[in-house]
């Protein structure tokens, strides 16, 4: 009894609250990345290995636009647009010829793309990490911390982007095209939906979401050429845990995994806290291989 009481006493309540906020903020960024990834997978059957590189390039585009115009929000929008166009070009050049081939070919092709993009970034921007100043510099007091409002803004904005995207899928004309293609691509084609262009559009939207999250995330740490791999790994974990191609599941899993990781960071070194998400993945594979957040196991 005493041991149990001691255990509860030893949990630092303030740290838990701080880490909850941190976890939700990280989780929303991750959800934004993962929803693009899961969208591309769900509709095109493509595991986009280059998603982390689109995230990274988005952050770099943000750095460039913000450095020239000085406006963060303009940087956010411009970066999303530029990377969307880049994504469309990549899809047309490399993934469209692979439609109908084994999905393993597409994972190899996107892996090649990620190599090229990552090394291009290293070559173009150099190994030194770049900084974006926080657009909102005010803080509020969270226990003994001055917590930046900007982080809360990140979470809210990510939620807004995901939410508006969901509305678009649900009610927009092109959103209905996308859902129809996901459901039955041959029937959709028969109904006059230009399926190859839907693929291109979906890839562009996923790329834009990755770029937006890159710009949003950039002020909290630096921007460098290798930042993509960590995030794409996390996004892969989230997408598998949430159920491949399942948008809601990915978002839930993103927040779940990020919360666990930030709680683990109370007791562990942050670089080791990653292991917690690996453990979640292993347990998921053992007990629910179709994903934790899928209501009916397929």
């Amino acid at each position, binding site marked *: 009894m005493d041991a149990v009481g001691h255990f509860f006493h030893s949990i630092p309540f303030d740290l838990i609250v701080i880490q909850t906020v941190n976890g939700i903020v990280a989780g929303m960024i991750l959800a934004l990345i993962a929803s693009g990834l899961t969208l591309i997978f769900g509709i095109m059957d493509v595991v986009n290995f280059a998603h982390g590189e689109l995230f990274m390039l988005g952050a770099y585009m943000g750095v460039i636009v913000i450095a020239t115009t000085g406006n963060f929000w303009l940087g956010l929008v411009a970066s999303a647009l530029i990377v969307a166009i880049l994504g469309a070009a990549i899809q047309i050049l490399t993934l469209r010829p692979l439609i109908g081939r084994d999905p393993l070919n597409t*994972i190899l*092709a996107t*892996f*090649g793309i990620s*190599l090229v993009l*990552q090394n291009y970034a290293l070559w173009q921007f150099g190994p030194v990490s770049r900084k974006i100043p926080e657009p909102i510099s005010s803080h509020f007091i969270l226990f003994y911390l001055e917590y930046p409002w900007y982080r809360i803004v990140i979470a809210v904005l990510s939620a807004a982007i995901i939410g508006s995207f969901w509305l678009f899928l649900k009610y927009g004309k092109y959103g209905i095209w996308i859902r129809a293609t996901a459901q039955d691509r041959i029937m959709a084609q028969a109904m006059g939906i230009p399926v190859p262009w839907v693929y291109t559009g979906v890839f562009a939207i996923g790329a834009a979401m990755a770029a937006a999250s890159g710009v949003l995330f950039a002020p909290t740490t630096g921007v460098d050429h290798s930042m993509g791999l960590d995030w794409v790994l996390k996004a892969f974990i989230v997408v598998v845990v949430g159920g491949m191609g399942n948008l809601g599941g990915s978002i839930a899993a993103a927040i779940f995994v990020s919360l666990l990781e930030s709680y683990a960071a109370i007791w562990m070194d942050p670089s080791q806290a*990653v*292991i917690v998400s690996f453990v979640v993945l292993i347990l998921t594979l053992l007990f629910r*291989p179709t994903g934790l957040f899928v209501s009916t196991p397929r």
Partner: protein
Amino acid sequence: MTTTTPLDKTLPLGKTGLSHSTIFWVGFCVVIAVLAAAPLMLPEFWRRFLTEVLIWGLLAMSSDLLIGYTGMISFGHSAFFGLGMYGAGAALLLVSPPNLWLAILFGLAGAAGAALFVAYFSTRLRDIYFAITTLIFSQIFYVIIFTWTNVTGGENGLIFTRPHLSIPFIYDARFTTTTMHWFVLAVVTASYLILRRVTQSPFGMVLQSIRENEPRTRAIGYPVARYKMVSVMLSGLFAGLAGVLYAVQNEFAAPNFVYFLTSGDTVIYNVIGGIGTLVGPIVGAGFFQLARELLARLFGDQFPYLIPLGLVFIVMIIFLPQGLLGFARRWLNR
């Protein structure tokens, strides 16, 4: 020059009147002879280069067992390679005097442990899910090795001395670059022969039928999951062997080699050289390393060689998914 010699095997395809196996084994002996004679003629740098190509080729060949024969793409071979490296390092640091065979034993044990772990969890999944989980598992090993500084040396890795090349009671001498090359060549050749035998055995046939049609293989009554696990384990063991060789040649073990990039390179070697041929990946490794070296010499060390090589890789996936040796695939597997 010498790295492209395995192509010789594919030359005598015409109607020469000789049986397939005669041509194959004559070609095989010629290639081995050329590779064995190469260090006597090459300058020091290229000798080491050729040895490294053979080691990378062994790693790629081990991964070919999964990619080309079982139809599962592994993005996690760096874990097996790295565990082989660190296992060899442990043996060389803990036991004195350092013993080559003990290093191989420890390295294989390390790789087998990693392979058992990966095989048990990730063979539950198919296709892309398998690829993703192998990648994530290799990152687990990377994080552990990178952060467990007391044991693994963390970012700095381990540094040790090269053991003697010793055959008990017969031979005992320091490695020179030439004997190192011959030793690596012998190991790679033996591995090739074993893997070739495995892929042509009934077991290998079941693996190939899993690649062609998994549900049907299961319906016929083969325990598919067990076959997949064994193939991952086998592949991991040979990858670990490559890791041991690399550690012995370079006298260090570093976390960089456990990182995802090594796995990525392995996949590239396979795709460039031609999956499902066993020798193709070695050719792919040679092509890749040679191109990298030439680009570095032409444009300087800072040149991002992965941009042109990555583009070549993408183009090959779209237009030549069979790889450089793809045209000889059936012939080599007969």
